[in-house]
């Protein structure tokens, strides 16, 4: 009996607003505990929430990008449960009437296949605080700075079929959120979180199996590991004739396994009801249209455009559009020096090497501006400097921030392209290496490379390689035919 996996993912993304969802405290990270709090986010008696306009607009942006239907009227609901990091002991969230529903995203899997993953809903809610456990004593410490930071929850349909697909889906979502400038997508720091619902069923079966919820996966790799483990665990159980228990399981990164949580409350009874302190939320169709018109180009669209407009291969387009700032850098440089292939090659080799980036390549730390890079490439393409010299110049530009023209001038690196100058260099080399010349003329053609190297050496790399070859060959022929 073969089984297939059915996976649904719930993503929580922290929105990049300046102030919190329902009060005006800063959302800035890293402050001393409880220094970014006010009576409202502390849940003091008598306080009331007022919704942050930007949080709504960011939510609508993502909803549009994910092809969702946006409700004209939606409601906030209270999700009631007790926890020390939840000061009101309820979370303001959305339940029956979320802002957006029935969307989808196209995900490119590793095999290159494009899969359409459905989104059940996107809704707004507020984040909870942080609970830090004492190592030694049976106490914990509550920091409410993060309480009230706006989140969107993105719930996928159970359309995902494998751990790899799950990772690809998460990468796609994260890239979109970052492109839309509404989230910084940092899984390690917790601004992008994921929980999974996993079940398996006989291949071809349409009815869903019993699902488990998996939590505590804080990287894409761990999501894959956790899902892989869980699928194997459930498969083994079913093959042994055991039944799957519907439960919440925590992933343990050190073992790679999931383990059942000791149940805190019999299956949470959240007692959702519409929050009476917040009236119905209206999303004006005119607002949706304005946001749609102002929507930044999304990664998939940009990649396609790069392929079409600049004629670069899909792989390169993918690398360049992986981050929006990188894509912008590329386009600005191309604007100034319309040789997209050259620009693309340079960025993907020399520049990225300097950045030492992971798959994010934080271009914001690059000291070389698009103008400077364009100038360098112009100098190279026009033959003023050789490709090899250009690399040296670029390293200098990167460490000093100086313009290429200035560096070339200061170091006298202008490529020698004067044929008579090269001829004199060639003649010097051949004259100084008479022994080698004899061997060459006797038939050892490999020595030619040595002569080229010598010419480049005495010219300090400035000799135009193509011309060196041309002039050297002519001179060797001339001397050979003597």
């Amino acid at each position: 009996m073969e089984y297939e996996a059915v996976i649904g993912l719930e993503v929580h993304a922290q929105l990049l607003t300046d102030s919190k969802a329902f009060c005006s405290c800063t959302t800035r990270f890293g402050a001393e505990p409880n220094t970014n709090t006010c009576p409202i986010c502390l849940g003091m008696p008598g306080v009331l929430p007022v919704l942050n306009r930007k949080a709504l607009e960011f939510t609508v942006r993502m909803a549009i990008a994910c092809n969702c239907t946006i409700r004209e009227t939606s409601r906030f609901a209270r999700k009631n449960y007790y926890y020390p990091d939840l000061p009101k002991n309820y979370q303001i969230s959305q339940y029956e009437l979320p802002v957006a529903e029935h969307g989808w995203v196209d995900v490119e899997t590793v095999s290159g296949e494009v899969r359409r993953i459905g989104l059940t809903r996107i809704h707004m809610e507020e984040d909870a605080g942080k609970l830090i456990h004492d190592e030694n004593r049976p106490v914990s410490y509550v920091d409410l700075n993060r309480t009230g930071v706006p989140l969107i929850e993105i719930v996928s349909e159970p359309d995902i079929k494998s751990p790899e697909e799950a990772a690809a889906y998460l990468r796609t979502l994260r890239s979109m959120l970052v492109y839309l400038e509404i989230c910084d997508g940092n899984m390690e720091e917790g601004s992008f979180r994921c929980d999974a619902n996993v079940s398996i069923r006989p291949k071809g079966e349409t009815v869903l199996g019993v699902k488990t919820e998996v939590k505590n996966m804080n990287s894409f790799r761990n999501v894959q590991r956790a899902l892989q483990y869980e699928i194997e665990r459930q498969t083994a159980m079913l093959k042994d004739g055991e039944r799957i228990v519907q439960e919440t399981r925590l992933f343990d990164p050190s073992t790679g396994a999931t383990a059942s949580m000791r149940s805190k409350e019999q299956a949470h009874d959240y007692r959702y009801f519409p929050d009476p302190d917040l009236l119905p939320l209206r999303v004006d169709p005119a607002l949706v249209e304005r946001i749609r018109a102002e929507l930044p180009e999304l990664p998939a669209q940009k990649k396609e455009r790069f392929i079409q407009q600049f004629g670069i291969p899909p792989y390169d387009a993918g690398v360049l559009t992986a981050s929006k700032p990188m894509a912008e850098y590329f386009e600005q440089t191309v604007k100034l020096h319309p040789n997209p292939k050259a620009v693309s090659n340079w960025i993907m080799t020399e520049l990225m090497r300097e950045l030492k980036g992971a798959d994010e390549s934080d271009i914001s730390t690059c000291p070389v501006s698009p103008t400077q890079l364009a100038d360098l490439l112009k100098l190279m393409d026009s033959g003023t400097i050789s490709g090899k010299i250009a690399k040296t110049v670029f390293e200098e530009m990167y460490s000093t921030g100086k313009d290429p023209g200035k560096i070339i001038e200061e170091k006298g690196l202008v490529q020698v392209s004067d044929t008579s100058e090269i001829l004199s260099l060639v003649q010097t080399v051949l004259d100084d290496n008479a022994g080698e010349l004899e061997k060459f003329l006797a038939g050892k053609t490999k020595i030619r490379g040595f002569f080229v190297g010598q010419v480049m050496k005495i010219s300090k790399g400035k000799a135009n390689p193509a011309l060196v070859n041309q002039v050297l060959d002519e001179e060797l022929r001339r001397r050979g035919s003597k």
Partner: protein
Amino acid sequence: MGNLLPGPNPTFREGMQTVTQLYDMTATELARLLREKKVSSVEITRSVLGRIEAVEGKIRSYVTVTPEIALDMAKEADARIAAGDSRPLTGIPIAVKDNMCTRGVRTTCGSRILANFVPPYDATVVGLLRREGMVMLGKANMDEFAMGSSTETSYWGPTHNPWDLERIPGGSSGGSAAAVSAGEAIVSLGSDTGGSIRLPAAFCGVTGIKPTYGSISRYGLVAYASSLDQIGPIGRDVWDLALLLNVLCGHDPADSTSVPRQYPDFTTFLDKSVKGMTLGLPQEFFSKLDNPEVQHAISEARAVFEGLGVKFVELSLPTLDYGIAAYYIIAPSEASSNLARYDGVKYGHRAGEFESMIDMYCRTRAEGFGPEVKRRIMLGTYALSSGYYDAYYLKAAKVRTLITQDFEKAFEKCDAIFCPTAPSPAFKIGEKIDDPIQMYLTDVFTIPVNMAGLPGMALPGGMSRDGLPIGLQLIAPHFEESRLVQLTAAFQKTTDHHLKRPTL
């Protein structure tokens, strides 16, 4: 209570035969004397503080009296008046119900769980009182978390009705109403979720109004039932209420349920004729009325209104009883969620001993809350719990639409609705506290008004044979509290019920 002030109570004489104590006068009268520089705010405040010292032992209107703060504010008020920088109510002393946050002054909601809570912020309305230059006397006693109709559930003990110390003053704003009645405050602020301003006003023989939901900011009012709670003023007569409504009504961006709208100058309605207006008599209200003394007060009042040219029509509110039942789902449900925050983590009482986090929550709340609050939390939690939401909360919310529609239809036939505030005068302390359903039936005339969000005015309508005040009620359409001011003023110009004072 402690030593408030040395010396006798200051009194005011101006060639009058009888001496009227300053604490016995209305805000309107005192404001005039202040303007005419015949008296100072400090003198008025001393008079009221002296009165508190004299009678508070019997009445227990207050949880916290703030004499130093009051005198400081009085001095500031006098300075503003001298500088020509005063407003209509500058210098007038006021009591604030203890469920409105007052910065630096403990705010207990009549509960052990907040017995030591000192808010670092003012409720919006408290800020408005400060801006007006009023003088805060202290925090008035109340049923715990506003849950009750008698002020018997207060952790601090019951407030006593100034008209009969063995009786309840009504609730939950019992302290606010009793203080005004007894001269322990010139005016006060109360809050009303199911009748908590109007009922104590009626039982204490003073005038109180719950304005339209959304007209006075709830920011800083400790929530009981968010969709029903409203703050309102209590005073000796509608002239004082009109002045307070002018201060309090208005949009607050900090309250998402606050309505962005302009309010009229309510004092312009104090002198308007009511001739030609129509008052409606809902049969479902009157079929519940079986107390002959209340019936008598109603028919006397009707005669007064008819003498002023007001017509009466019978009408029907068919879903009234269901509207009352729905309140007992909606209010506790919202309350169960609003009161979840009292957990001993951030503020308030925390249990001394516990074995785990859950244990700490459970013991803290068991120790901190009284039986009525626990009962409503249980009821509300049950009504919202899995499997019951549709049958209870959702159903109640739909019934609420129906009762609101009933009122809308009724107002097509009349300008305002007329009925009693309560089915009987004040009952004895301890009489109903162990019978929740009996207690809840005290609110049958007041609850529907909150369910529909309408404004409701309670005004004195006479006395029972036992010398207990009987309250009348007027209900108007949304944002027509000016009509209530107009009708009440006409009535109070023609009658003297509101002039009576208890002897203490």
